């Protein structure tokens, strides 16, 4: 007897259409369909457009560097720019961002220099930017763990009566992890000023969402925790920005957390070492390429007369500068001091580590002497 998984499964209710303000064709959605969210101003949209174009240029450049073998690993966010940029654009300077390994373009948009973003992918050090200056936690690799850190930080801010909000980014697969559920629950119980932004790019490495969970949308889960949840078109930056900004305001005014699901698609492989042809077909990818977040906004801005040739030229120039800076930082030989290995393990120095450090120093000195000879 064989168990037919398909037939024993409870049929899932069809998901509702995601909330959007600008449709695939670049037209503004009718007011009656926008759930009360308003289209951002032309000025805001132009700025979001600029940031998306720059972010994509960076992403494409870094992927090229991996193809040239100059970088070991890079998880691309190509196609996910609307989610990434909205996450950053709605935060104040005092707010904190808790990103994952995929969210390098969010870092870029928040002002981290390419060389500092790439420090970890180049292998210089695990993480390479100024966390306090940018108010960005180190990019988390163990899935969903950073969501709890965001809840803790936001709660501490609340205890100190600061207006700080924490926004954390999660993938769809990460929402199956216990830590995601613990974070949603803690945040709701503690009314923490947190925004959870799930980028549903429909795959966790090779596993599609319908093997990850059995409910309609990730946003629906919010009901179970007692917080608002929104299912948003993750390729519509206008909607992502409007909803995420509202969630940040909601948190800042003491009303607690929000769960947002941005429905998007991972155009590139999981990372450059992955082979997506084993688990998805090219036709699907083409459908999603056709829903490109940048092209959609571009069509809208052009039809509104809000994107001039001068704008395009300056955006292109800025994007090329970022790409050049990205390439340039690969040619600078990073100075990594092996003795620094021992420097940041403890605040309080340990004699045993000092011994190991001295032993390595001696080895290095011997190597140098034999090299001279």
């Amino acid at each position, binding site marked *: 007897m064989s168990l037919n998984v398909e037939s024993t499964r409870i049929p899932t209710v069809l998901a509702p259409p995601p909330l959007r303000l600008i449709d695939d064709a670049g037209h503004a959605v009718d007011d009656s369909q926008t759930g009360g969210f308003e289209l951002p101003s032309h000025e805001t949209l132009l700025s979001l457009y600029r940031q998306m174009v720059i972010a994509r240029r960076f992403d494409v450049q870094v992927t090229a560097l991996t193809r040239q073998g100059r970088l070991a690993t890079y998880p691309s966010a190509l196609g996910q720019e609307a989610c990434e940029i909205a996450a950053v654009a709605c935060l104040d300077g005092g707010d904190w961002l808790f990103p994952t390994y995929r969210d390098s373009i969010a870092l870029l948009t928040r002002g981290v220099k390419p060389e500092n973003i790439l420090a970890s992918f180049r292998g210089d050090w695990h993480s390479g930017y100024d966390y306090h200056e940018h108010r960005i936690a180190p990019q988390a690799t*163990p899935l969903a763990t950073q969501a*709890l850190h965001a809840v803790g*930080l936001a*709660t501490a801010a609340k205890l*100190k009566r600061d207006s700080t909000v924490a926004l954390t980014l999660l993938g769809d697969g990460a929402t199956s992890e216990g*830590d995601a559920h*613990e974070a949603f629950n*803690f945040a709701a119980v503690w009314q923490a000023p947190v925004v959870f932004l799930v980028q549903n790019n429909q795959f966790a490495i090779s596993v599609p969402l319908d093997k990850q969970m059995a409910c309609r949308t990730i946003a629906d889960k919010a009901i179970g925790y007692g917080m608002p949840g929104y299912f948003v078109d993750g390729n519509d930056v206008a909607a992502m920005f409007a909803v995420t900004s509202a969630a940040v305001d909601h948190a800042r005014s003491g009303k607690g957390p929000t769960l947002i699901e941005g429905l998007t698609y991972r155009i590139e492989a999981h990372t450059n070492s992955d082979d997506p042809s084993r688990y998805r077909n090219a036709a699907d990818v083409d459908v999603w390429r056709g829903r490109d977040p940048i092209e959609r906004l571009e069509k809208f801005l052009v039809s509104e007369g809000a994107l001039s040739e001068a704008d395009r030229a300056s955006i292109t120039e800025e994007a090329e500068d970022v790409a050049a800076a990205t390439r340039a930082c690969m040619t600078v030989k990073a100075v990594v001091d092996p003795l620094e290995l021992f420097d*940041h393990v403890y605040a309080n120095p340990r004699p045993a580590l000092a011994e190991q450090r001295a032993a390595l120093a001696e080895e290095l000195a011997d190597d140098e002497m034999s090299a001279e000879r």
Partner: protein
Amino acid sequence: MTTLIPGMATRTPETLTMASALNAAIRDAMVEDPTVVLFGEDVGPLGGVFRVTDGLYAEFGETRVSDSPLAESGIVGTAIGMAMYGMRPVVEMQFDAFSYPAFQQIVSHVAKMRNRTRGKIQLPIVIRIPYAGDIGGVEHHSDSSEAYWTSTPGLTVVSPSNPADAYSMLREAIASDDPVIFMEPKSRYWSKAELSLPVQTAPMTSAVVARDGTDVTLLAYGPTVKTALATAVLGAAEGLSIEVIDLRSLSPFDDATVSASLRKTGRVAVVHEAAQFGGYGAEVAARLTERNFFYLAAPILRITGFDIPYPSPKLEEYFLPTPDRILAAISRWEWN
């Protein structure tokens, strides 16, 4: 012996259990430093299942002492975020084996954050773990998890064995800029001492000689210090002079104090409740042998729990290292 913490008024001597000494340490730290916050399962109005946090909720209120949802990874993970925002969280893992859901947060983040960020983010978190057996607990309530933590770089792991150390070491742990796994031996919670608080004993990261001797060194920590001291008394009656060292700090390991004793006696046995294979005693034996081989008159012994899951209450007396078992083990060394 004990000295005063400079600048703190001495209170009148009182009889304190280890649990009440720990309670006083948290209270004093919270009075002194408004960034110290306490949370965990049942630590609020109930005061913790062992009453270590008794009265703190009433005294400091919900913003500083709170019952968290029942989720250990969540407790440690949120403590990380709080520490990133300038707090000093003290969190409780209700029982040893219930710290395992938090394993990832402790090992992947608490231990590594300073290193990952080149010292830019530090996590002054104390994770209190009531541990070990001998209280007739049901399964999952008597584990000794120290080897998991001590083999993780970035963590400081300590275990007091008496009320004075409990107070002093917890104060130091809360003040430390490094995260500390603070392992509280459950079977010693009700041990008593006459103390005038605040007391400051030896530095948290050092071992102390709990009893002088010349023939054998017993290394113990937490729950087994009492066992080792009882062994020394029995040994003395048989004409054997046993030195007992209370390690107090498992990571870092106090090489100097322990090696000095080894070089005096030439014979060392490590006593712990945790299973032997791959356990903490194995590290101690290897480390001491590497450094002191020519001072050893006999191989270093381990008297530990068996390599089995912690047994149910009716059988734990057969599992735990006892003075008789320790004496029997060391009598098998060749003495000449």
